[in-house]
């Protein structure tokens, strides 16, 4: 009888050992799986950010030719990388329509020549005596990419209409994922 009890206890111990072993193995695989997933998804975030950056980089070189920005034939002949400042000022007023249209978080045009010492953000009231056109007024936390463009507008002097073009930078911001 005593021998039987001892045998049963030994068997129970073995079952317990086996159960713990199997649980440990399962836990090990689960942990490895979680680790793999974490590594994978952090890579995914990096890829998403890289794609955003690539989009912004390729967009900034061509954005000035997009119909919402481009001068077209409005200033004499057809110009490449020319932004129509009058059109952009009007566009700024209806920018809510264009949220997510270009897939970037903000677009900004900064006049660089002739230089104005302080930063004056353009609005309908102070235009054209300003040097920064922000398409969205909120301060973005994204990364900027820029390209040089000519910024043209219609001006008048003593009743004569003429075209005035200045050197500017078009900046595109994208948010890191």
């Amino acid at each position, binding site marked *: 009888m005593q021998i039987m009890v001892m045998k049963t206890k030994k068997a129970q111990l073995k079952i317990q050992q086996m159960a713990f072993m*199997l649980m440990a193995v399962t836990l090990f695989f689960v942990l490895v799986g979680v680790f793999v997933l974490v590594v994978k998804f952090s890579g995914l975030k990096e890829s998403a950010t890289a794609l955003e950056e690539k989009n912004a980089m390729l967009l900034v070189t061509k954005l000035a030719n997009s119909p919402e920005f481009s001068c077209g034939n409005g200033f004499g002949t057809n110009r490449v*990388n020319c932004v129509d400042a*009058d059109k952009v000022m*009007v566009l700024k007023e209806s920018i809510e329509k264009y949220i997510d249209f*270009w897939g970037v978080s903000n677009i900004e045009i900064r006049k660089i020549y002739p230089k104005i010492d302080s930063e004056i953000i353009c609005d309908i009231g102070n235009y054209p005596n300003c040097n920064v056109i922000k398409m969205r007024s909120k301060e973005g936390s994204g990364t900027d990419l820029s390209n040089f463009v000519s910024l043209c507008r219609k001006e*008048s002097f003593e009743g004569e209409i003429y075209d005035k073009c200045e050197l500017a930078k078009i900046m595109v911001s994208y948010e890191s994922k």
Partner: protein
Amino acid sequence: MKNKKGLQISFAWLFAIIVGAFILFLAIFGTTKLIKTEQTIQDAKTGKDIGILLNPLETSFETGKTTSLTLPVETRIYNKCNNNGMFGRQIIQISQKSFNKWTETNINVGFSNKYLFSESYTEGKKFYIFSKPFEFPFKVADLIYITSSLKEYCFLDAPEEIEDEISALKQKNLLIENCANSEKVIRVCFGSGSDCDINVNYNMKYVEKNKGKMYFEGDALMYAAIFSDKKIYECELKRLMKRIGHLALLYKDKSGFISRIGCESNLNLLELNDLTNNFESSANLESINYVIEDIKEKNEDNVLCKLW
């Protein structure tokens, strides 16, 4: 008495077998899921990448531009169009061959500022991408035409300017002469050719394809009709009309804005906006074109204060 020892399995063994089988099942299930997720990620990434690579095709002059795209594996680019919302959305879905099977795709990669014209899906490893600006009457967008290197388009009896443009593009699957008679070749006839897959009536401004008629205005829309399915063509056209409507309002506001310095322009832009809002199909293009021609003429005559 029979000896039943051979049939006896101890509880420890039974437990180990069941749990072992469960672990194996979990491992196989997990791996399969991971592979599928990886394929989906790859499809989504490729779709986004293709969309991004279309950015440099934005043109500034009235000329076409062509480029090619080679992918490492056999790929299907599904072209889906959604005309809901402010500008509608261009949707790309990618399916790639893996272990000789096409990956299942349900990841939509969307862009609001792109207009892609192609068959419902384009298949191959190498794709030709050709873009052309669409002006109506101002520049609206660059239309992008995607074709596979596995298909050749043969333009028969095309008008001289179309032939010149195709020759200048040097896109290998667009031919104007020496067209082989194979299944790979799609015959695009401008005259009364025989054995035509696509018929273009350049004077009446329509393209006949798969027993459907697609109307066009300008060469950019003509190419769009040639390279795409009717459903995609009509949907993308509706999206383009939405953008024309918004641009018409933008120019209307601009004309008001520059009038402060004495720059006056009196164009029928609100009527154009109304017409684009009521646009239903390519058959309406002709009626819009009358307004377009009038606006275009008036804008060109206004030398000092052109709006575009």
